């Protein structure tokens, strides 16, 4: 009898935790995509939570401090680690992506302070959603500069 109570209690906790995990995963899942994949999927991903990574093209960075609006364009980089290694490491891949005019590109808009690590050939990992205008609206920006710091802590910016 007592044993039953404990088993029931345990099952109840288990069920609660599974429910918490399942619903929270659904509510906050972010689909990780490359720029190419994003453009291939097109309209089907509009409005979904997305996480996109790309190489920052330095010349396109515009910042308006009055409205704290940051605009820049990223170029497609592969998400496959082995491919990156094969092409000579992240720094080389980012550099090539920026200098290749035929790469798929994506315009990004972000509101907030200008991140310290944002510069040409940085890797940007952006969380946000794709607007109907084809512009990516980022809520969070993570940046990594492999050229100088192989072991850098990526900077975290939150809204």
């Amino acid at each position, binding site marked *: 009898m007592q044993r039953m109570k404990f088993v029931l209690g345990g099952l109840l906790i288990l069920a609660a*935790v599974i429910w918490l995990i399942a619903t929270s*995963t659904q509510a906050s899942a972010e689909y990780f995509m490359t720029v190419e994949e994003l453009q291939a999927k097109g309209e089907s991903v509009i409005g979904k939570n997305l996480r996109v990574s790309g190489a920052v093209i330095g010349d396109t960075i515009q910042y308006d*401090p009055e409205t704290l609006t940051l605009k820049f364009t990223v170029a497609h980089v592969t998400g496959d680690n082995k491919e990156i290694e094969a092409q000579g490491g992240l720094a080389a891949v980012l550099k090539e992506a920026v200098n290749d005019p035929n790469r798929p590109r994506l315009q990004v808009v972000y509101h907030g302070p200008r991140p310290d690590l944002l510069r040409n050939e940085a890797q940007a990992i952006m969380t946000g959603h794709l607007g109907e205008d084809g512009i990516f609206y980022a809520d969070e920006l993570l940046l990594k500069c492999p050229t100088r710091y192989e072991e850098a802590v990526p900077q975290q910016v939150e809204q």
Partner: protein
Amino acid sequence: MIADFGYGILVTALVVALYAAGAAIYGARKPSARAVESARRAMLLIWPLLTVAALALIYLLVNDHYEVEFVYQVTSRSMPFYLKVTALWGGQAGSLVFWSWLMALFASAVTLRNWARDREFLPWVIVVTAITIAFFLAMVVFFENPFARFWQTASGVDAYTFRPAGGLPVTPEDGRGLNPLLRHPGMIIHPPMLYLGFVSFVIPYAFAMAALITGRTDDRWIRITRRWTLWAWLFLSLGLVLGARWAYDVLGWGGYWGWDPVEISALMPWLTGTPFLHSVMIQERKGMLKHWNMFLIILTYDLVIFGTFLTRSGVLSSVHAFAQSAIGPMFFAFIGLTLITSLALLFWRWPDLRGETEMKSLLSREALFLFNNLLFLSILVVCFWGVIFPLISELVTGQKVTVGPPFYERATSPLWGALLLLMGIAPLSAWGRSTAKTLGRVLWKPALAALLVVAAVYFLAGVRNVVALIGFTLIAFTGFVTLYEFWRGARARQKAHRESLPLALWRLAGRNRRRYGGYIIHISMVLMAIGILGIEVFQTETQGTVQLGEALALDRYTLTYTDIARFDVPDGRNVTRAVLQVTRDGKAVAELHPRIDYYYDSQQPMTIPGLYSTLADDLYVILVDWEPASAVGATFKVFHNPLVNWLWIGALVFIFGTLVAAWPEREPAYVPVRAAATASGKA
């Protein structure tokens, strides 16, 4: 020269560690007391050896030996002395050396204790600690040598341990410098604390394994390691809190915890260590939960190894994890191997570890402790799920899906809330049997007081946020229950001994340090919860571009922008520093200096906030942008973080509570005699 010497010492230390493990196994199997003694002496040799190796590396760091790759990566000429020293743990190779050094320190300390009563544990404790040290040293010796130097060969400049054929030495003019994010006084204390917490959890694990191997599976191993565990837990907790404070001071996003994989990996051993700390009490007292305790300490050990790897692997926050470092697969192999071996030992001894009594009632102390354990493990499962979910989803659907901070916040906050509630109830429940009625009798007063507080929060302060109201209810309830426990205990003692109330309180806590130390820790958790609730629920922000003389307003504060300057400082920074006059309700309260530090050597700016901190709230200002040539003015972002200071105050109370609980007790024989005397005196 020094570099070769240092490397030689590391190799020697590795050989000695392997010898210690081998001799200890031989000595235990044979059995040969001489072999065990030899293993013990070998163990005592490792720490001095590693001290020499670490000093050699520090010598290279502070004397700008940039021909050494590690020195080149983490220091530069312009860095201050203290940062050059702390750069020892500023990169992966040096961290591994530092980790091994701390581990050896703890292992030596433990081999020096009095083993008279526990002779059979000694060889196995040496085996476990020596193998752990040997693993880390092997990583350093074979994969991540901090003493590797640059050599020019036909294929270019690269770092090698030994001079390659036809190689010419290369000495760069200056180093890259430590990552600016790490150039902070927090660097002195935060990583060592975390590492201390990590390595000291290896000691209870070693004793647990010794207990399993020798078959001495009573609670002796727990009694020996009780204090070690408490210190380990203190260091780990402090490491986490210091990291949070550092993030708050330096990262400039107004927060303290971002749920990134590295933070989570440091939190995970805490999520198993904390329930371990609680459930060993049940084993000591009732002889229950023995399997469970073994399982928890095994898990803690492997999470510590995992955390060490992840915090220094340099592959943070990126979904492209683990591949960049050569030692990743090694770590996973080691974790897998130790986990399988430990669990196999546990199953082998499974019948010996059966509980001596059964759980009787759902509200008994032991049952509530079990719930507490389950809640902690649930949070662990949530964290683990969040970290591995991208891998799973990619395997199953081919689409990489990640979860961010909202996932962790949403999934763990009800669990944290439930833990807070249990923290209030569990200490008041009785061992063996407890009913809602007996619990109600001790709980109704604090519950009533909590309701009054929440009513005040609702009606007087006008808080309507549901999460905040639930949070405040739990906080007030648990806080009052714990304080009421002090009051009840002190009153009872006051009456029995005719002492003044403060003296009674002092003696009460002094005689039951573990219990009252624990209560103080519970209060500290309540205080931290206040801070966390404050910043999570009530944080507000504003931003704007203002001209000199203009002001920004947030909450009751007005910030007037009065000055700005840009200048160079000698350690290689260019500083842009703004001055803001802050008034609250019209009264001047502070002058803040948010600034942007631009590091020339790494071409990287750092945003340092200006902070005005009171018990009620923090005003947190960052300078976003300023161009000297333009007329647009300066842009600021301002955060108002209510109550956040209680998070840090709670941390101080926490240290105090843990010290009370961990302080060595007086001779245990003294207490029963005294208790008997009082009992007979009363009769």
